[in-house]
């Protein structure tokens, strides 16, 4: 349930903000070849976040373990979400028109380095996934 909410809660807004999904005037999914990799990364980050965050919630609640991994996975998810989401769309326009030059620099950075940032985000999520899987299997075996 949590995984489904996280996946769709990330995938749809990010795809809409990145202009891969349009709902007006018609609902349409449009991925051009030049932006296919970017779309694939959004899909991968949403998928990994949907796996990793619930795993860590399970680890905290059921196994009663303190974990910093959920923080890392959230950082990964947030980096992935912010990269590229603030460029030409309404959020970018709102941020730049409200906060001025500093915001403009930040959005330029997030847009120019969209792919590397999303790859870093995905890398973080993958690392957290493998370490969490390993520790859960060890902890369950002990119990």
């Amino acid at each position, binding site marked *: 349930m949590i995984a489904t909410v996280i996946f769709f809660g990330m995938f749809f807004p990010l795809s809409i903000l990145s*202009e891969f999904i349009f*709902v007006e005037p018609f609902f349409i999914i449009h991925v*051009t070849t030049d932006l296919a990799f970017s779309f694939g990364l959004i899909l991968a980050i949403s998928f990994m976040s949907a796996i990793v965050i619930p795993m860590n919630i399970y680890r905290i*609640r059921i196994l009663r373990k303190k974990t910093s991994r959920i923080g890392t996975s959230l950082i990964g998810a947030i980096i992935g979400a912010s990269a590229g989401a603030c460029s*030409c769309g309404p959020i*970018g326009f709102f941020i730049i028109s409200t906060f001025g030059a500093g915001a403009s620099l930040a959005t*330029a950075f997030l*847009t120019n380095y969209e792919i590397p940032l999303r790859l870093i985000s995905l890398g973080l999520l993958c690392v957290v996934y493998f370490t969490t899987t390993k520790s859960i299997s060890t902890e369950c075996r002990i119990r």
Partner: protein
Amino acid sequence: MNKLIPIIISGIVVALIVGVVFPSYFAQVVEMQELRDKALSIPKAERQLLNLDHASPVLGSANAQITIVEFGDYQCEMCHSWFHNTRGTIIDNYVDTGKVNIIFVDLAFLGSDSPIAAQATHCANDQGKYWEYHSILYYKQEGIDNGWASKSMLKEYASELKLDSDQFAGCIDSAKYASYIQDSYNAAVAVKVSATPTFYVFDHENGIVEKISGAQPLSVFVKTIDSML
């Protein structure tokens, strides 16, 4: 208590995504719909929704039944995508056949080079090459504020188009069209355009206007235009 903190944080993040991004987007959709309804309710003669005083020259026949008004930024990746994936077919099938014309309005907000690039197109227009310069910018685009649209590069592009270099440099250096770009920005904000690219498709004969937000695929434009013709 410490164990609950990560759960609370993740809950806040999910709530922010689901509770803020989605509702704000759908609020915008509703706003677009209201704007459209408002536009449709205004008689044709009085429909002056958009201030196009400082827009581009018209691309295509001045007497075309349909006008596409594009609000764009030369550093916007999605404008670049629309330019390369959709615009060409619209020009071939509708502009060159006299059914549609295109007007570009600068909504230059992405970084400090965007207004300069927009001014450069109007400087090129002084020498009759607005659309050629417009196209060259979308072929040269490489990101935001990373040098490709600096003043020196803009002057180089003018040389590539064989424009009078001194006249062009004088125009750019004196910021001759800075007020045009600011006026266009204000015009966009006045009609609640808050993203690039955004399009208004006007059917002059039937008094219909449709707003299309984002670099939507060709099929959306074809469907919209064909429903008007």
